[in-house]
Structures are given as structure tokens and as C-alpha cells.
């Protein structure tokens, strides 16, 4: 009971932490969407040597992103950016790390969506004289994004669920906020329970949206 009182005292700070969690995840998912789309377009290239090399690099990139822990990726990006002499804040490094990670997953989601578009559609557009970029921008991708919208929301949930790992870079999102308050107040469990409930509300809420999107599709 004491613990609960302490937690309630710090409600504004906790909510601020939640705000940062949502913000950092939203920024990451938007950049990831751009990265994922870009990777998908680059993967469409023909069989010329340069485009084969590009495709190979992308394949390796996606494989690495999907097969290694996000925590390790966060450390690598943070250290790599520092070694490159870029004087970026931990926050920016964290957003970049999450975006690069999620971008790999989104590229795969988009690839799945692309297979659902009949070839005849691009052929029809090409026969009408549309240029390739125009076909992608006006015919293909609008449909793909519609098809994969439930998966993209699920990916947003995933980003939120991995965002606590940014606490290792001392980014003051929800989990880091709780840790700070714990060292300050010597109350531990109630804070972790409180943030677990908040994460649950956000993620379970987003899952309802996924359900709605699936119903629409």
C-alpha cells in the first residue's frame, strides 16, 4: 500500500516517461517505414551486376537484423556512431538503432504484401504508358500499404515492446524513468508493476486496432 502511494506521487513523471516511450517508438516506426520501403524498392532491381550486389547486401542486412538481439544492435549502433565521430545524443542513437532494426522487419512485411498484387496491374499501368516509379507510387504501394496495415501496426507494438532496451543508453523513456524513481525512493516492485500495466494498456489497445484493421481488409 505504501508502495502504491509512492507510485501515485510520481504519476506525472511516469506519464512523462510513457510519453517519451510513445514518442521514441513513433519516430522509430516512421523512419523504419521509409527504410523498409526503400529497401523493398531497391530489391526490385533486375539481374545486372550492380543490382545483384545491392540485393545481396540488403539480404545480408535483413538477415543480420532479424537474427541478432535488438539489445546487441543498440550497443553496436551506439558505439559505431561514436567511432564515426558523429556527436549524437543517446536519444538520437537509440532512435536510429530501433529504426534500422524495424526497417529490416518492415522490408519483409512489404515483400509479403507485394506478392499479393497481381502482375497484371503493373502490366496494365505500363501498357498505358506510366513510368516505373509512377507505377510503384500510384498503383503498387498504395495497395501494399493497405494490405499490410495490420502487420505494420503489429510492428509498432513490437517497437514499443523493445523500446525499454533503450534504457541501457540512459534514454529516459518509461522503463528508465521507473529505474530512476526506484533508486530515489527505494521502492522497487510497485514501480515495475505500474509500468507493466501502462505498457499493457498501450499494447493491448493497439492490438484492438490491429483486429479492426484485419476486419476491414
Amino acid at each position: 500500500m505504501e508502495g502504491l502511494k509512492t507510485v501515485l506521487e510520481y504519476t506525472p513523471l511516469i506519464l512523462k516517461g510513457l510519453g517519451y516511450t510513445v514518442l521514441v517508438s513513433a519516430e522509430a516506426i516512421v523512419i523504419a517505414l521509409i527504410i523498409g520501403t526503400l529497401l523493398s524498392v531497391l530489391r526490385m532491381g533486375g539481374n545486372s551486376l550492380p543490382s545483384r550486389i545491392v540485393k545481396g547486401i540488403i539480404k545480408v542486412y535483413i538477415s543480420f537484423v532479424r537474427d541478432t538481439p535488438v539489445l546487441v544492435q543498440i550497443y553496436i549502433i551506439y558505439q559505431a556512431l561514436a567511432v564515426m565521430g558523429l556527436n549524437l545524443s543517446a536519444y538520437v542513437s537509440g532512435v536510429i538503432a530501433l529504426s534500422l532494426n524495424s526497417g529490416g522487419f518492415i522490408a519483409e512485411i512489404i515483400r509479403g504484401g507485394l506478392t499479393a498484387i497481381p502482375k497484371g496491374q503493373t502490366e496494365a499501368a505500363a501498357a498505358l504508358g506510366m513510368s516505373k516509379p509512377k507505377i510503384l507510387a500510384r498503383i503498387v504501394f498504395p495497395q501494399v500499404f493497405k494490405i499490410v496495415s495490420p502487420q505494420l501496426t503489429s510492428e509498432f507494438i513490437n517497437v514499443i515492446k523493445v523500446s525499454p532496451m533503450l534504457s541501457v543508453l540512459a534514454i529516459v523513456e518509461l522503463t528508465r524513468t521507473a529505474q530512476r524513481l526506484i533508486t530515489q525512493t527505494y521502492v522497487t516492485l510497485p514501480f515495475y508493476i505500474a509500468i507493466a500495466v501502462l505498457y499493457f494498456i498501450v499494447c493491448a489497445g493497439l492490438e484492438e486496432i490491429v483486429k479492426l484493421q484485419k476486419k476491414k481488409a
Partner: protein
Amino acid sequence: MNDFIHVASISLPMLLQGLSLTVEISVLSIIFAFIGGLLVGYMCISPNKLVEGIARVFIKIFRCTPFMVQVYLAYYGLPSLGINVSAFGTGVLILSLYTSAYAAVILESGVKAIPKGQYEAAAALGMPRLKILCRIILPQTIRMIVPSLTGQFVQTVKDSSILSIITVAEMTMMTKEAIGITFSPLFVYICAGVLYWALNLVIEFISGRIEKKYNRVRI
């Protein structure tokens, strides 16, 4: 160059030691999670609404909160419940519970994909429900979900890295230790990344072989 060789000679043995614990934790957790998933999945298809509800709540809680927060909750929560286990035990326990929520969903969707007639044919021949599930439904389900289960295994290997925050000496934890000695974080982290990558590629390769074997039998 000499620097790298020096750093590698110190850190690689440490990383490999961590890797073996990562493998151990992952294998234990995926086995426990499979058993747990069977149980929770079985509850999900129970005709008893209360039993089903309990299973659904379990799944929802574990799937809708970050694993890292679950790890902290288990680490600080278990002792206050009077349960004193090692960090390793806590890690395996929470990773198994978390993974079993996902395994249950995979199993349930697999079971639902089996045509109803498969069940009815066995029921019409007089087979009891549990026997139908074990001998007719489950063998077919498992063949179908091998890809998803391996995907989950890869995920479990990755999730195990988070146990480094509660001092389980798996590979990510050992990476930090090695960095403490060698002071070359980027290189050692990349080494760890490559090792995780290699491990998961091996898992995916083996899964591909298993899948092929099943597909050969079932034309």
C-alpha cells in the same frame, strides 16, 4: 591489426563461454515453453469458458508487455513472494513463460487449421477426445508449425540476451565483461552479433532440413 588479434584472443574465449550458456538457456526455455504452450493451447480450446479465459488472460499479459519489464518483475518479484531462485533459474523461468504464450498461439492456430473432418473421423470411430488430440491432431499440427516454431526458437535466442540485465552470464553479459577488460566496445559487440547471427542461421538451416523431410513424406 595486432590490436584486433590481441582483443580477439582475450574476448573470444569469454564470448564462447557465454554462447554456451545462451544455447543452454534457449534450449531449456524452448522445451519448457513447448510444454507450457501445449498446456495453455489445450486450455484455449477447452469447452469450459473459465479455463479458456484463464489461458487467454495469460497469453495477453505476456504478449502485451515488454519482455525486459517481465524480467525485472520476476527478478524483484519472486523473492518478495518468498521464492528464492538463482538469476539463471529466474531467467529460464520467465523466458519459458514468455515464450509459452507465443507457443500456445502458434499451436492453437495450427490446430484450428486442421480440417474438422479429421477430428470427426476419429470421433466416429470411438476415439476419446484426448487420444484424438494426441494421435491425430497434434502430429499433423506439429508438422505444419515447424517453421513458426523455429522462428520462435530464433526469437528465444535473441530474447535471452535481455537476461544480461539480471546478471545471467550469457553471451551479452560476457560481451560487457570482455569490453571491461579490452576497452574496445564496437569490435567485441560486433563479434557477439556475428556469433548470435551464426547460431540462428544454424537453427534456421536445421529447421529447413526438417521441413524438407516432412514434405518429402507427404507429397
